[in-house]
């Protein structure tokens, strides 16, 4: 069985989907025991896999014995298994957080079963995005993830299905560009395998196809990355439970950023290929766009809306690392990626704990939170500190490496962006601390379930663990995940496209 662990890890959440629906008709408690059992099994297998990939290096597994590039290939690396472990943790946190929500609604067992099934489907699809090394496989996983996420958005509401339709429809339209991009790559190389693609492009010396395929693939990422911005998904905060929004934003958007990392630095990273000037300008236009998103976040009077904007704006920090593209910047990006997974989920969980019955959460409701709910207040401070970049949080070290990357490249524009967003965050952070410890008597009584506190504290602890053990995380998981040019491996310097390769 051990030799088939890669496929078992991937199939487990998909196999749990029909069982989660079926068991909900049998007994609520059987279903509620089944869900953590699946998550624990996933961790157990993940742990065994991690031990193997840490000792023996990346694990390539060919589905059905068909070797890549003909067959589907699953590649497990220390980083993607590590990332998958955090995604399992957030999935289980979302389930545990939502449990009191379902216990109170005793008559909605089928809906609870469907929620669990969609949670597994989304988790499985995101794991597929992390592990599969086939362009069409990525498309099918992305489409499945979009369907599961859209199902989660509309599951617990009966008023506004438009958000679900818009998310699924426009996400699907964007995702349709991925097989189009794959077609262009296949037509010029004859392969769909991500690792094989680069070597085939290298042989064909077709730099134009890299640009065309890269640009065609961009729309596939847009909708999941701008979710849940209130600009594009109005009224989402009042309709969909915050923990569902948080889970989708955290896991799907950040999972796709990892896919983008693989595509940009392992599949389309043609040596000697220089980006055209207009593309560089377009990349730099992202800077004011994300600063604008931060400003919008800080203008919000509702905490949930602010968190929704911040979750999108934070992606700018990750994309900046890709634009810089140096070893330090990519190290910072991958560390920041894991931190953001936890921070975004945690902030939405907190917002869900405090919101009013109508689904709103005015900032004034946070006044005195630190005194009335000290643990929740503390977790909020940890998440905010990670956003600002205050040690010893994971986000602090991620930003530190990003700043180092910008300094190494002498890229003052991006350095300005990173420091400006950190300062904006700091300003908001100070305002938040004053607010939550301002009053001795809480402005509003928070009557949320105590059980909801556990996943919030687990995520906050995760942020601190990432920060404290960042050196281990970087050495064992992140550095082996970087492009070979940034690893201490001797490679021949082959001139390509008339230029010397670094």
């Amino acid at each position, binding site marked *: 069985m051990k030799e088939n662990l890669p496929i078992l890890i991937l199939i487990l959440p998909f196999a749990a989907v029909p069982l989660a629906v079926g068991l909900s008709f049998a007994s609520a408690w059987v279903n509620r025991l089944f869900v953590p059992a699946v998550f624990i099994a996933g961790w157990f297998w993940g742990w065994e896999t991690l031990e193997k990939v840490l000792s023996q290096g990346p694990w390539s597994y060919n589905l059905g014995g068909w070797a890549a590039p003909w067959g589907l290939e699953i590649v497990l690396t220390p980083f993607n298994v590590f990332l998958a472990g955090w995604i399992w943790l957030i999935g289980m946190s979302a389930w545990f957080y939502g449990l009191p929500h379902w216990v109170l609604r005793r008559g909605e067992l089928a809906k609870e079963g469907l929620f669990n099934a969609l949670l597994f489907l989304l988790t499985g699809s995101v794991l597929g995005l992390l592990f599969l090394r086939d362009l069409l496989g990525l498309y099918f996983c992305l489409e499945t993830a979009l*369907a599961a996420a859209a199902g989660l958005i509309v599951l617990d509401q009966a008023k506004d*299905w*438009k958000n679900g339709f818009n998310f699924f429809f426009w996400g699907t339209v964007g995702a349709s560009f991925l097989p189009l991009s794959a077609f262009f790559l296949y037509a010029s190389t004859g392969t769909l395998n991500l690792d094989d693609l680069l070597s085939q492009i290298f042989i064909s010396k077709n730099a134009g196809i890299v640009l065309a395929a890269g640009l065609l693939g961009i729309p596939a990422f847009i909708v999941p990355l701008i979710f849940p911005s209130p*600009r*594009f998904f109005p009224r989402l905060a009042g309709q969909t439970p915050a923990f569902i929004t948080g889970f989708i934003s955290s896991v799907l958007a950040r999972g796709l950023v990892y896919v983008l990392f693989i595509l940009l630095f392992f599949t389309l990273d043609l040596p000697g290929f220089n980006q055209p000037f207009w593309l560089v300008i377009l990349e730099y236009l992202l800077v004011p766009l994300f600063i604008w998103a931060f400003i919008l976040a800080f203008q919000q009077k509702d905490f949930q809306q602010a968190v929704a904007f911040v979750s999108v704006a934070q992606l700018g920090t990750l994309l900046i690392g890709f634009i810089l593209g140096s070893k330090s910047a990519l190290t910072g990006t991958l560390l920041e990626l894991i931190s953001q997974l936890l921070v975004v989920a945690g902030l939405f969980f907190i917002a869900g704990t405090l919101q009013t019955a109508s689904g709103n959460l005015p900032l004034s409701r946070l006044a005195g939170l630190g005194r009335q709910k000290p643990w929740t207040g503390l977790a909020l401070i940890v998440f905010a500190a990670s956003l600002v970049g205050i040690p010893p949080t994971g986000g602090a070290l991620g930003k530190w490496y990003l700043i180092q990357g910008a300094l190494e490249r002498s890229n003052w524009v991006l350095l300005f962006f990173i420091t400006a967003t950190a300062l904006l965050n700091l300003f908001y952070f100070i305002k938040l601390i004053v607010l939550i410890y301002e009053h001795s008597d809480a402005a509003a009584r928070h009557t949320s379930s105590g059980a909801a506190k556990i996943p919030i504290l687990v995520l906050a602890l995760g942020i601190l663990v990432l920060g404290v053990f960042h050196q281990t995380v970087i050495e064992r998981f992140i550095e082996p995940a970087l492009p070979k040019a940034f690893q201490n491996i001797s490679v021949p310097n082959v001139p390509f496209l008339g230029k010397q390769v670094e």
Partner: protein
Amino acid sequence: MTLNSLLIIRCLILVAGLAALYRLWTSTHLIKKSLFWLIFQASVAALWLSGSYPYHGHWNPLPQVAAFLLIIFSIGVLAIMLVFASGVLRNDGVLEIKKTNFKGHS
């Protein structure tokens, strides 16, 4: 099939795909939007199909398999879109969506 005829076929597929993309963008009817997306997706599948070529007397199966999977998968996706559209119909009583600004106001 000569290269030129293949080029013409691909151009026609591209025009059909772009027309469907334009219509799905401008249409306000949820069912029509979904159907135009299916046409767009079919044009992508047709492009894949056009990538199949004979090699030692056999047609390269991968583009055909890719096109087949895309079509089968797209029918399922269309069914999900229709479920969401029926949800909108159930709640709002109409399948038309109003043109809105970014803040969701008409």
